[in-house]
Structure formats: structure tokens, C-alpha cells
């Protein structure tokens, strides 16, 4: 069984030098699908070196929030500033360049199964390559391959570099997906239910890795989770969502069990 991490002291929300120049700032984002308002004007700030866990029941708007943050979905109102750039104001190439600062780790394994782990990780750096050097994986620059190898080493998957992604276990594949984000040299990692398809041990390892990337490498990590116990154990901040709005935004040691229960009970009763 995975061992519980050592007791950590949590930084105060919104304090310290890290609070300056936050890489992701979301302000008043609204999103509606037909009659259903999924996000009702939410705002949040994600700082470097912190792991923010977002909890909430199905359909409360967690994944929509994450997608609006990198304009995989266009919000109806509000703005998302990624490393100081308002994504809503950008188009085409400038939008692509701005989005390089964020990497998304999906619930389902977002690797190309027919390719090796190394090739998948290299693809994180595609935006930094010329079209000519990116036409084939064999033409990728050496420095990108070296960086990909370092990324694999960082997530403990270097020995699987040449293994086809389709043959990796769920936990291994998710770690390779995180290595791709690392190779991308993104400032922000947005993880959409990254451990939902994993067994408890693999889930623990992936959460430890995400927390370590935040604390050791200074990345800003936002993870949408369905496992409150993982959120409380690994996150620096826990954000509860209910019906498209934030119910609480607290340090894990400040979150009461009833508050977490209310996130799900409320939805159940509403249904």
C-alpha cells in the first residue's frame, strides 16, 4: 500500500512572494450550454509552486473551467490570463504560442498508442520546432530528444523510453503524459481527473508526482479530482465547486468533512 506523505506545512492562501505574477488568472468566467449555465462567473488565481485541487460532483463545471482556462472552450464572458496574456484576445499563431505555457493531462490517456513513450514526450516540444524538423519523429532536433529523455527520467519512466505507449499500464501512461508536459516546458499543468482510471497505488504515485512538480520545479498545477482524500493529502489548496460556482477555497487542513460532503449531497438532492 502507498505510504502517507510526511506531514507538510501549507503556505497561506494568497501570501508570499509566489503570489506575485501568478501564471494563471481566471476572472468572471461564464459558460452556458443551451439553457444550462455550467459556469456562473468564477474567478481564481493559480500560483507558481502550488498544487490546486478542484473537487465537485459530476456536471458542476470543473472540466469546463479547465477547458475555458486554455480556450479549448470559448467562455461566454470573463477572461483567462495565461502568463500575463489574455487568451480571449489572441488568434491563430499568437494563441498557439501563448498556449505553450499550459499543458493538459487528461483523464483518458492522451498518448498516441502506436508510438514510443519517447516519441510521445518529444511531441510536447512540437511548438518549439520548425515545420521541417517536425515532419517526422526521426527529424526531431537532438536537444528535444535529450529534453524528452530528461523528462522521462524526471517521472521515473526512462527505462520505458522505447516501449510503445499502447503497452504501458494506466499509471505509466499517465506519467508519460506528465513527462510530455514537462518536455513542453509549460509553466502551468492542468490535469483533468488524471487519476480517475488508475488503481489506488498508481493514483497515489501520479498525485505525488504532480505535487513534486509543483513544489520542486515551481510549476503551477491545477488538478480536477473526484477523490477528496487525495486532494486533502497532496494539494496545497482545495477548491470546492457546486453548480458552476465555488463553494470554498481553502487549505486542506481547513476543509471540514461536511463541506466536502455538501459538494456531492447537494447535487444528489437537486437531481
Amino acid at each position, binding site marked *: 500500500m502507498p505510504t502517507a506523505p510526511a506531514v507538510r506545512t501549507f503556505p497561506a492562501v494568497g501570501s508570499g512572494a509566489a503570489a506575485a505574477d501568478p501564471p494563471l488568472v481566471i476572472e468572471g468566467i461564464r459558460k452556458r450550454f443551451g439553457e444550462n449555465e455550467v459556469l456562473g462567473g468564477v474567478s481564481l488565481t493559480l500560483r507558481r509552486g502550488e498544487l490546486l485541487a478542484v473537487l465537485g460532483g459530476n456536471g458542476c463545471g470543473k472540466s469546463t473551467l479547465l477547458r475555458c482556462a*486554455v480556450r*479549448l472552450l470559448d467562455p461566454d464572458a470573463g477572461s483567462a490570463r495565461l502568463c500575463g496574456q489574455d487568451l480571449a484576445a489572441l488568434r491563430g*499563431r499568437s494563441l*498557439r*504560442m501563448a*498556449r*505553450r505555457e*499550459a*499543458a*493538459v*493531462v*487528461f483523464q*483518458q*490517456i*492522451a*498518448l*498516441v*498508442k*502506436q*508510438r514510443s513513450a519517447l516519441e510521445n514526450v518529444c*511531441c*510536447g516540444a*512540437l*511548438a518549439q*520546432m520548425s*515545420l521541417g524538423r*517536425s*515532419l*517526422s*519523429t526521426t527529424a526531431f532536433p537532438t536537444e528535444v530528444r535529450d529534453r524528452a529523455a530528461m523528462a522521462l527520467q524526471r517521472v521515473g519512466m526512462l527505462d520505458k523510453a522505447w516501449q510503445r505507449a499502447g503497452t504501458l499500464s494506466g499509471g505509466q501512461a499517465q506519467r508519460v*503524459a506528465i513527462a*510530455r*508536459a514537462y518536455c*513542453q516546458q*509549460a509553466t502551468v499543468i492542468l490535469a483533468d481527473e488524471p487519476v480517475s482510471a488508475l488503481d489506488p497505488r498508481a493514483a497515489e504515485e501520479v498525485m505525488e508526482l504532480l505535487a513534486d512538480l509543483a513544489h520542486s520545479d515551481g510549476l503551477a498545477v491545477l488538478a480536477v479530482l473526484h477523490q477528496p482524500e487525495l486532494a486533502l493529502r497532496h494539494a496545497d489548496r482545495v477548491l470546492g465547486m457546486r453548480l458552476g460556482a465555488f463553494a470554498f477555497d481553502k487549505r486542506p487542513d481547513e476543509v471540514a468533512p461536511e463541506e466536502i460532503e455538501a459538494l456531492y449531497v447537494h447535487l444528489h438532492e437537486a437531481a
Partner: protein
Amino acid sequence: MSIDAPIGAAGPGATATPRLPPRTRATRSRLIAYGAVAVVLGLLIFSWIDAQGSVTQFFDGLFARKGLFRDVVPHSLPPDLSALWGGVRAAVTTLAIAILSIAFGLIGAIAMLPLAARNITPSRPLYELARVVQAILRAIPELIMLLFFLIVFGFTPFAAVVALTFHGIGVKGKLFAEAVEEMEMAPVEALRVAGASRIQVFLHAVLPGVRNTLLALTMYRLDANFRSAVTLGAVGGGGIGFLIDNELNAFQFKIVCTYMIVLVVFVLAIERVSTIVRARLNA
């Protein structure tokens, strides 16, 4: 309560047999099903009449004194093996037509793919345009296309290659686009967010993701293309189809029989190779 007990004859505490709600929707569905069967039967009867179907003619054609089995088959046996090498040589030409048209069709279909798949197309009008072009290419039969290309290229196997290529772009283009529309989009979105361009996303997420499906579909089309190349050959496209047509017109049934044997061996061999390759791709 015993399992053999009749319904309603339950023991103490059992409730009365529940009354089922009326099957309004089920009755409607049944009426629709009966209507559909009637329409299909009507279509079959109409088609039989319109195609001048005749059971008598069918059996006469096969078994009468001047029928296939009592007249043509005896005149076809034994096959004239002196025509064997010529038949093999012509079948190789037909195979060359099939292979070239498959290769060019594959390139054409993949080139249209970024526009023709709904989930990766840059704009809806371009998607509609690509799908319309594919539909037109599919709608014109290979034989009719060949008649046009014979005017352009003359009576050469290359005219058949071009005709099969264009038709293949229409057929494979649709199949490929549907394969992309059904693919897992997470790798595509992951690269999109990472800042990769459309071309990079297509090369490193879309194509590798559907590569095996596309190759399997292409191999599946290879034997279909070979059979089509035989038919086109009879109309002037060259190859074994052209030889069969010539010898049939000269009533040289023994030579035709040799060509038919060559043809069947080629088709079975191609089918076998296609099956093996597809099985390996799907493994």
C-alpha cells in the same frame, strides 16, 4: 412459494398479479415494423419486374442444351495451358493497375483528410466542400470515368489507373474521414494545447492514431481494386480483362478458361495477403 405454483396462486402475503400499463409505444413500433416490411416487399417485387427477372430464363440459361453447363463449359475444358504465361503476364499488368491506383488514391485521400473529417477540419464550409467532392468522385462509376480518360490517355492501362485513383479517392476519402471522426481526441487536444500547429497535430496525433485503420482499409480495397481493374481492362484498360474480352469474342473458351484460373488464383492470393496484413495491423 413453489416455483411450479401457477401465477396468481401465491401463498400468504403475496399480492395480486400486477396489471401492465398499455403498450401504446410498442404497438406503434410494431405498426412501423409491419409498414417497413411491406415497403421492402414492394421494392423487391418492383425490382424483380423492372429487371425482367425470370426463373425459367435462369434455369434455361444454366442447364438447357445451349446453356452454360451443357454448351459453354464442355467447350472450355480442358483449359488451353499454352495461354498460361500470357495470362499471368496480363494479370501482373492488372495487379500493377490496382497497386498504382491504390497508392495514388491513398495519397489523395490522406491529402483531403484534414478538411474532410468533421472533428479536425478548420472550417465547416471546407468540410462540406471536401465531402461533396468525395461524393461526386464516388458517384461516377469507374467504368464511366475510364471512358473519359480513354479519350485523354488513349487505350493504355494508365487510363485505368487514373480512373481507379479518382474513384478510390472518393471511396477511401469517406472511409478515412469516418475513421478520424471516430478516433480518440485526447491526444489531438493535448498537442493542440501544447501549441502545435494544425499540420503538426495532423502528423503527430491524427495520422499515427488512425494509421493502422487506414492501412487496413487500404488493404481491404486492394482486392476490390484488382477486380475493378479486370472489368476496366475489358473496356480498354488493358491487362487480363482485355484478354478475356478478346478471347470471349473469338469463342476461344479453352483460353478463357485458362485466364479465369489465373484470375481466381490472383484474387485469392491478394485476398490472403490482405487478410494477413490486416490481421497484423489489428494485432
